[in-house]
């Protein structure tokens, strides 16, 4: 399956469309596809060849921008008519940004890198072992990232209360952090964010306590910046503790809170 890779275009009206073309790997097969795309004036914004298909088959995935949704069917038909094409799938991206996969990698307008989640988690563990108040430090680190992400996204596309959590979900997917399910009540400014397959929890291993505080901070920072409202986000259950998913509770930050109330855990 082709995941909707959080591919955005800067064009206001253009749609980002992906095509997944399954073909027989005969000599010149890819050239025929490209030739047909060229004839239809399809400009490829991003593409890759999937080499994990069975022997004798190849998959060519491309992303392009088109003006009219009706053009998608026309392109599908034209591709299917090429000799050696087994199947063509397509879909329209809801989002509009393309991030670089060339060197240097770029993500959310900044230099990016690929790291093993174990490496990231090793850093978290060392922080936990050696720093006072590691939960606060990790939350603040995530908070900064979440606010920065929100500012960037807001700058490049229209976001509002309706779609900002959908964009957050895409961000988590695109960066490989996990799959989000959001249950948020805008009236009470409270709810729950479930993270499936959190990269932190998966790499961390068993723990007696939640370990995804960095993500809580990211979510808090993102939501606070997007909704101009101060949120408290706390992870209440975690995959590392043996739960199926990680669960982050979102609530308004207590107003006029006194430290002694927090210490006595009167405020949850």
């Amino acid at each position, binding site marked *: 399956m082709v995941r909707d890779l959080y591919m955005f275009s800067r064009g206001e009206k253009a749609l980002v469309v992906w095509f997944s073309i399954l073909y027989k790997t005969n000599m010149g097969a890819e050239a025929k596809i490209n030739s047909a795309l060229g004839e239809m004036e399809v400009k490829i914004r991003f593409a890759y060849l999937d080499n994990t298909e069975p022997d004798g088959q190849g998959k060519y995935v491309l992303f392009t921008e088109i003006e009219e949704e009706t053009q998608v069917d026309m392109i599908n038909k034209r591709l299917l008519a090429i000799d050696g094409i087994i199947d063509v799938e397509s879909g329209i991206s809801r989002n509009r940004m393309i991030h670089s996969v060339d060197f240097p990698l770029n993500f959310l307008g900044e230099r990016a890198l690929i790291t093993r989640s174990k490496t990231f988690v090793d850093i978290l563990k060392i922080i936990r072992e050696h720093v006072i*108040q590691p*939960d*606060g430090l990790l*939350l*603040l680190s995530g908070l900064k990232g979440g606010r920065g992400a929100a500012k960037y996204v807001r700058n490049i596309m229209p976001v509002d209360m309706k779609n900002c959590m959908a964009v957050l979900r895409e961000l988590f997917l695109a960066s490989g952090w996990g799959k989000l399910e959001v249950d948020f009540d805008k009236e009470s400014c409270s709810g729950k964010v479930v993270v499936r397959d959190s990269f932190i929890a998966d790499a961390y291993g068993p723990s007696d306590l939640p370990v995804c505080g960095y993500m809580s*901070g990211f979510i808090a920072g993102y939501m606070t910046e997007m909704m101009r409202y*101060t949120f408290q986000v706390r992870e209440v259950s975690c995959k590392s503790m043996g739960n199926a998913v990680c669960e982050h509770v979102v609530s308004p930050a207590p107003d006029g809170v006194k*430290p002694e109330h927090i210490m006595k855990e009167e405020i949850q």
Partner: protein
Amino acid sequence: MIRQPNVILGNDKILVTMGKKGELFGFFYPRRDYAQHVEESLVCLQIDNRLMWTNNHEWYSTQHYLEDTNMVITELVHGIGIKINIQDFAHQRASVMVRKYTISAEKDINGTFFYYSNLCVGEMHKKNSAFCDPDVGLLAQYWQDNYIGIMASPPFEQWQVGKAMDTIWWTNARYDMEDGKLQNNKEDIGYLNTVVGWDLKLKAGQSREITVFIGAAPKRTQLYKMMLEIVQEPVNNMLENSRQDWINWLSKKDLLKLSLLDDTPETKQQVLEAFNRCLLTLDLLNDPKHGSFVAAPEFDHDFEMCGGYGYCWNRDVSEVAVALLNAGYPEYCERFFHWCRRTQLSDGSWFQRYWLDGNTAPSWGNFDHSTQIDETGATLHAMYTFYSTLRGLQKAEFLENIWITVLTGAEYLMRRTTDGLHDPCLDLWESYAGSFAYTSAAIFAGLKAAAFMARAYSEPGLASRWLERAELVKNKTIEKMWLKEGYFAKCLADGKLDPAVDASMIGTFTPFNMLSATDPEEREMILSMLKAIEERLSVSVNGYHGIKRYENDRYIEGNPWIVTTLWLSKAMLTLANSLHNAPGTDTEVSRLVQGAVNYIKWALRGTTSTGMLPEQVDKHKGYPAWAIPLGWSCALMIDNILLLETFSEETHDGKI
């Protein structure tokens, strides 16, 4: 976190280190070594919904001392047309730092002026407590008997006491500042940060003054009393009183003509300023209560890249105290030697390094084989240097008080030199184990010093014994460590000589005079040593040459050091002095003096913008590189300048 200061200030109660942009790096109270209460403390403006931290790269800064004082002027300019002038100084009497801000704008601004602090009172991130008393306008943070208070004139209008590193992130003072309005939380505990704020509305061309007072006290009641008194005083009076105090202190120094440098007035001015700056700096490094000095204000509290510098080494302070003595400030010697009497170990030696109050400091020299014998020799040598300047009753009293210290110190040196060459121990750089020419020279000088005082104390037997051993130490060191290439080996360890050139061999000439310039054969040895050092340890940077410590030095990039460079120039000037007026030596004298002046110029190019002398200069960029300011560097600069002055006194035409 390691941060090298650009400037320091203080009084007899506090020591403050700051960066180029007026941000506090350290606030030491009640001693110069402990406790350091500040993680961050600086101004931030909130304008157009944006926080403008004054240590941000967007601010261009210049910084200098008010002439002949330890008062600092910092000018910050932002591209959007905002200027901030900061006058920083310590109060004349109280343990209070005064920070007078003048903010001016080229266009209308409407925002907030914040003074933000992340304090770790008592060097503790944990278990701090902070509160704001809005009735008196005091924000205080404390741990045990350490109270740090912030007051202001005019009083601050809003505040926040927050958690610096907690999951309840919205109480964090840094985040609270973003909308320009603070939550005014009155108290909290734990790892905290705080901020106080004022509305800042300026029309184009207008300016506003805000003065922040940061005070320290051992008790809450004392903090309240002190701060409430201080805030009533007109700031300009405080400033003028403090300025006058420093000028008065500096007026005690020996006056310099430096006619030798008349042909280069710019250099002469720089040298005169350096002399004053070094004296003023050394006063700030001194603990007036105990008499000890920190080698440098501590900047590596966690020993991340070194063993730290905020302690008292007898070796360094022996140089520092004697430099101050020669410059006209004998009182530092008196207090230091009183401290030495108190801190001497039962075996007669001194420990590697101490806290300023005399407690032994963290050390990697706890055993006989890892101690540094040179420190005991250097201390006795400095004691005698001071003793020989005294007269009459004062001289007799000093000797009476110090005699047991001298006796036990000398006997310690005797025990460690039974074969002439000293037992294996650590070198002065605290890196190598073995026997060293520098250490031998310090022992030689220590034993001779003790012997001279023994004679004065009517102990001729001891004097003879110690003098005899001193000569044995000298002879054995030359016999076993002098290389045919014409210099001392770096080290003798396990029967093997390390032939690397090490600048510390200069110590055999100055200050310890094991080799005498008046002896023709030894003079040739000195010249040969200096030549080897210049040939093999020179590093070209900043348009001149600096001298690194030894070949293959790996410590902090193996940079050239101010200490070794000024040590070499001191040796050159001392040698030139000894040759002066001898027939047929004009060319040699001129070469030595000119060479020394070039080394001094190199050292001056390696200071911070405020004239602080570091330990090292970056060998690639020429920046001050490490341990700023270093007391030993200051002492050697003073020594060099006083030597230059002897030429000015002795030459008729005042020319090199």
